[in-house]
């Protein structure tokens, strides 16, 4: 089946001429100094949290305990060889301090500094311009070759340039404004996160839009694989180790992000923290890294007053018909919901083979992806005009530094900034819900699941997911009607500027349904929705259906089923 083709073939010029001006280059050129700066800042942060020496020693002991446990129970290839030796060293030094009579606080500080410096060096990225160029060229070249080889079944098509990434991925939304703001200040991109593909995709988007490379936190587990590790490093990633949940590490990470933002490095956070396991649009955001945007903005004002560089936060929604990891994600989600059981983070991208199979599937089968760029906002979540001035909803200009001001001075108040972070997170979530593009596949999954739910009102979620096969058949006519009603409701909200849809959602309903059924979770061995021989609708995997259904969760659309 063919739907009309919609294209956006625009090419964007880079907004900064050469890599020399890229802040990320500045940082990595002075990597040693930067790591030192981060260490100093992190040291100050931790000292201000731990009020006295006893509290600090306690913090160090907790950290030591957790790190020892990590090494024992969950060590990775990427961990440095001297990990064990280092922490044993910390242990004996702490022991010395606890036994010595005159408790010297300088020694305690020294241990803290040592740990921080180790963390900071581990986190710090290793951006390199020529590696960046090379990696990007490889990626683009590879993608295009794969795409052409797969799509145009003709001898020699491997070298054809008929199809490029542009055909595969649509970018829409506030593209021009994003580029404009990137010239005027520092951009923080905050995308939704549902797949490991996100990092690669967003990297490509940033390059396509002519933006300088961003720095972003990538899970340390990805660095286990040397080839990915090379790409990640080249593309400006710094490392985030989700196993390390101790305060010293987290504060070092925040210090890193704050300092990089302060230096004007465009950054990217996945504010949902990890991939959305339920398939829902993220509504609870992690505030830690997000807060560094607010902190960096305040420091800019403190240091430079009216001339301070402004930080803009740009929500981005990544929309898929298909999420490779869906089966294991939803499994983990349900397991967690079902009972409070701890699960070890297993990762589906553990081998190069799996990634290549995935990429091949991605390119060979025609599932399109869309990327929606939201409205750039200031760090308080206010809209900005084309000049980058913050405006309220009545279009009145406002000064962001006023939010940090009391009696005409910029004041530092951690709790105030935490509250601001919560407010910003709220604004980001509102934008996610508005810009997330509804695809045919989301519609059909939602319709089917909610019809089954309505039919079995008395069952709770977990019983519903275990419905026997004969109870999960939906007649096509009923299904069509529900899909149509839902589509009309959704389009109404699009009119009110509360939701967004892909262009294919304006097609006649039968086309939409067919398109949706074809695309929803298309590469899974068990398809979330299929047509039976008699033309009715059923599912091969309720959990997966639930996962894809969840994309439309939280809009209050259930009542129209």
């Amino acid at each position: 089946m063919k739907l009309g083709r919609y294209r956006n073939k625009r090419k964007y010029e880079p907004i900064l001429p050469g890599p020399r001006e890229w802040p990320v280059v500045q940082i990595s050129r002075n990597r040693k100094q930067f790591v030192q700066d981060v260490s100093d800042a992190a040291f100050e942060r931790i000292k201000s949290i731990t009020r006295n020496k006893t509290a600090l020693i306690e913090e160090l002991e907790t950290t030591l305990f957790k790190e020892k446990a990590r090494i024992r129970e969950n060590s990775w290839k990427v961990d440095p060889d001297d990990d064990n030796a280092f922490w044993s060293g910390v242990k004996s030094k702490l022991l010395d301090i606890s036994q010595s009579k005159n408790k010297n606080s300088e020694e305690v500080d020294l241990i803290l500094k040592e740990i921080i410096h180790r963390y900071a060096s581990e986190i710090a990225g290793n951006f390199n311009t020529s590696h960046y160029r090379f990696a990007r060229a490889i990626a683009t070249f590879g993608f295009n070759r794969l795409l052409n080889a797969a799509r145009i079944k003709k001898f020699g098509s491997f070298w054809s340039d008929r199809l490029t990434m542009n055909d595969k991925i649509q970018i829409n939304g506030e593209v021009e404004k994003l580029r404009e703001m990137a010239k005027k200040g520092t951009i923080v991109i905050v995308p939704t996160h549902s797949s490991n593909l996100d990092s690669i995709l967003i990297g490509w988007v940033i390059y396509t839009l002519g933006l300088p490379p961003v720095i972003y936190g990538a899970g340390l587990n990805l660095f286990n694989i040397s080839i990915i590790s090379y790409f990640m490093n080249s593309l400006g990633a710094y490392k985030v180790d989700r196993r390390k949940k101790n305060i010293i590490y987290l504060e070092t990470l925040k210090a890193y992000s704050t300092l990089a933002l302060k230096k004007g490095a465009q950054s990217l956070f996945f504010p949902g923290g990890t991939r959305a396991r339920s398939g829902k649009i993220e509504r609870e955001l992690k505030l830690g890294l997000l807060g560094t945007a607010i902190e960096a903005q305040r420091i800019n004002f403190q240091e430079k007053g009216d001339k301070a560089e402004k930080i803009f936060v740009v929500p981005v929604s990544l929309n898929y018909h298909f999420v490779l990891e869906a089966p294991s994600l939803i499994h983990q989600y349900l397991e967690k919901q079902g009972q409070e059981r701890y699960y070890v983070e297993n990762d589906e991208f553990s081998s190069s083979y799996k990634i290549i199979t995935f990429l091949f599937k991605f390119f060979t089968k025609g599932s399109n992806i869309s990327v929606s760029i939201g409205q750039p906002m200031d760090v308080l979540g206010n809209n900005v005009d084309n000049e980058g001035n913050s405006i309220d909803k009545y279009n009145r200009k406002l000064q962001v530094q006023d939010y940090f001001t009391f009696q005409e001075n910029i004041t530092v108040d951690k709790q105030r900034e935490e509250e601001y972070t919560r407010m910003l997170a709220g604004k980001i979530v509102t934008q996610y819900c508005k810009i997330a593009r509804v695809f045919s596949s989301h519609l059909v999954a939602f319709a089917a699941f909610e019809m089954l739910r309505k039919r079995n009102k008395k069952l709770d979620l977990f019983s519903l997911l275990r419905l026997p096969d004969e109870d999960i058949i939906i007649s096509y006519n009923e299904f069509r009607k529900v899909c149509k009603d839902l589509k009309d409701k959704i389009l109404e909200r699009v009119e009110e500027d509360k939701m967004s849809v892909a262009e294919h959602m304006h097609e006649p309903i039968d086309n939409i349904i067919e398109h949706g059924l074809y695309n929803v979770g298309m590469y899974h061995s068990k398809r979330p929705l299929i047509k039976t021989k008699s033309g009715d609708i059923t599912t091969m995997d309720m959990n997966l259906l639930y996962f894809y259904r969840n994309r439309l969760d939280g809009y209050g659309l259930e009542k129209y089923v």
Partner: protein
Amino acid sequence: MALKNMFRKPIGVIGAGSFGLAVANLLAENNKVLIYARNIEVVDAINTAKSWNKYKMHDNVHAINDMQQLAEKCEVIFPVIPSANFREMMQTLSPFLHPYHILIHATKGLDLNLPKGKTLVDMETLERHHIKTMSEVIMDESMVVRIGCLAGPNLAREIAQGLPAATVIASHFNEVIQIGQQLLRSDRFQVYGNPDLTGIELCGVLKNIIAIASGALSGMELGENARALLISRGMVEMIYLGRAMGGKTESFIGLAGIGDLVATSTSTLSRNFTVGNRLAKGENLDSILGDMQEVAEGVNTIRICKKIADSFKIRAPITEILHRVLFEKITMEEAVQYLMKYPLNVDVDFM
């Protein structure tokens, strides 16, 4: 008296009702205060005679009639005006406000934010976004985010007499709570903090319903057992309604909840109590409201909360029966009978 504080700018108060004047006087003990009054007579009286409406004003209080001036001169402002005028006041004030302003309001009512052209009667069901607390109105209408609210057993006349009392300042910002404490605290005035802004606002709003009922009990001379019954069941009802609108249970058992509830339900000084009292003695609502000098928020609150109880499917027998007394003309005696026959609930099921 030497000013002992660190606030360089005067503190603003908007509204010269009895509580506005009381707040201005409390603030004036440590600070210069600018009070905005709509009525130029009031401004003159405060500035020249240092007294208005039987209240003697502190020397540090200066009255003005210009919102813009108030916003330019003051960084911390206490709006203390009836909820019915609150949004309009914010719209006038808003162009002069900046994000550095701090607003701590003391208004104990709700604002309705219905679709254009609709009234409460037209609405089949209410959703949460149709109802706004005053802090939400401030957020709606201005760029101010550091917002707080003042609530607690604070009968204006007792405060004017210098009797000991305490209040709660609620805000999401510790900063706002601390500033409020520094500004208001004195030897005879304690100030507690609470982060549950919505909850504390709702305490002040919802207790007015019970105060009307309590006034009615007094009017019918039903005794103190009945009042104790009313207060304790009333609090349960406040908790149900309050939670449905986003307040936390804990807030209702604190000073601004049970504390204020006891004060307003037992004091003949309270306006809402007076409404209930006169209703029970057979007067009708229009004539009572007609000759009251100041607004009794409880009447409007009952109209809104009845609708909320229906829409959110909450058991709120006191609110419902008062609604019938006020707007469907049943008598207070019938109302009491209805409540006494109401099927029993579990005593405490909200903890």
